[in-house]
């Protein structure tokens, strides 16, 4: 990365192009911000970074206890429930954690952004990537459980990067929208937190789709259902996802990423002045 050698304010900002070239030229900073995000959160704790690994496991453990043991009969998924749960928790934690931290990224960096020139979108991308790294770390216990429970790791697990990268695009796009809006209205973050929780419960993380009965088509209309289902298909079911699922996942990710970046780019000029 090189320092700015020439700045001309009359240079026209080209939506998408400017942002993506900023991501690339600021990759050194991006890497630093991601490690900062991952380490600072647990800096003053005994277990430190191990919390990254423990968090999804504990959530899964609690849900397994409640839904897998207490309500055993009502949550029959027809497959190992722990895997069903952990896979769902991992990907949806990526979504919810990523949305909340990415949405707050620009306002949190206001101290820097109002004093030093750094493209604001770099901060949003770094928090989304940090949530993605947490997800990747969480894959380790998932794979270990697959191996020890006899399910094994199917070759389709090689396709895990598809739903993971799609989720990264989705979180970055939606997160940029939230982050830009949060500059003007501070309660946007509270609203986001509630909506994210709503989406979490409406997505089959711990309940089987079949439980929805006549609402099943509605459940499947939620794009996040496709993300989670695709991830489960490739990670442990060993099933190639149907084509429509691939289209929904990759398509929604690209469209929302482009839309979020484009809206950000259009409103960028007023953003820093309002911080």
């Amino acid at each position, binding site marked *: 990365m090189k*320092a700015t050698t020439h700045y*001309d304010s009359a240079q026209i900002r080209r939506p998408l192009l400017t942002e993506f070239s900023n991501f690339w030229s600021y990759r*050194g900073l991006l*890497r630093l911000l991601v490690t900062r995000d991952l380490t600072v959160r647990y800096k003053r704790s005994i277990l430190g970074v191990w919390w990254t690994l423990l968090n999804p496991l504990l959530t899964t453990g609690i849900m397994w206890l409640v839904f897998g043991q207490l309500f055993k009969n009502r949550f029959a998924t027809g497959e190992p429930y722990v895997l069903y749960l952990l896979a769902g928790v991992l990907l949806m934690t990526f979504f919810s954690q990523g949305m909340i931290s990415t949405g707050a990224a620009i306002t949190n960096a206001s101290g820097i952004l109002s004093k*030093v020139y750094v493209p604001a979108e770099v901060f949003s991308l770094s928090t989304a990537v940090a949530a993605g790294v947490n997800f990747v770390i969480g894959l380790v216990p998932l794979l270990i459980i697959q191996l020890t429970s006899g399910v094994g790791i199917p070759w389709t697990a090689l396709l895990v990067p598809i739903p993971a990268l799609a989720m990264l695009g989705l979180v970055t796009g939606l997160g940029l929208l939230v982050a830009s*809006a949060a500059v003007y209205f501070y309660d946007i973050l509270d609203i986001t937190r509630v909506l994210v929780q709503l989406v979490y419960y409406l997505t089959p993380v711990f309940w089987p789709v079949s439980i929805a009965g006549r609402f099943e088509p509605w459940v499947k209309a939620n794009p996040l259902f496709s993300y989670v289902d695709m991830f489960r298909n490739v990670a442990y079911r060993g099933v190639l996802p149907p084509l429509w699922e691939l289209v929904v996942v990759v398509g929604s990710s690209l469209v929302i990423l482009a839309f979020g970046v484009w809206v950000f780019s259009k409103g960028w000029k007023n953003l820093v002045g309002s911080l």
Partner: protein
Amino acid sequence: MNEVPVHVSDVSLAYRLARNRAGTFKEFAIQMLRRQVTIEKLWAVQHASFEVKRGEVFALIGPNGAGKTTLMKVVARVLPPTDGRVIVRGTLAPMISLGAGFNPELTGYENIVLYGTLLGRDPRDMRQSADRIADWAGLNEFMDVPVRAYSSGMLARLGFAIASDIDPDVLVVDEVLAVGDEAFQRKSFDRMMAMMNSGTAVLLVTHQLDKVLEMADRVLWLDKGRVKMIGEPKEVVGLYRESVG
């Protein structure tokens, strides 16, 4: 070819303020429904034009709220101008509230790397320069300590040491001349002077008019966002002092 490092032509900057500014989305939605939202433009700087040449010290003076800091931030690329054009040739080192990018939980060393990278330098390059920077700030023993344990003087010293570690083409300084104790103040003053002598263009904002007379080659007097005059330090500072009374 025009080789002036800082070129500001007819620059204006407006902050957009919503009347009865709604702080929350809820309020905004209600006002929107009642059609009470009007966006007002608050012009912080209007039609400012100037150039800063190589090795020149250009000072901005004016009362509080005149738009000095805003104009500096426009030059430092932090705020995009609403109208007009800014061109900066070469690397720019901003010294505006030093240490604003520090993370309290990270150590001194980690913050040197992070802050330097925020200023546009390469992280690898920063890791190599870290010792030199710590040395210069006199904070060698504290490099493995989280900066939340630093005193405000130590923070300011570290901030100045990082920001001044490069040899920039343009230096933007906002009221940071009074950093740390007297010994460090002299040290940082000397460093800035050395930069100026090596051809760095300096844009300086300060209320210390004696410093302006001592350092500046030219002075811009900003009043209510407009350029009142540009000229010789003695003349401009004299008239400014008269107007203030």
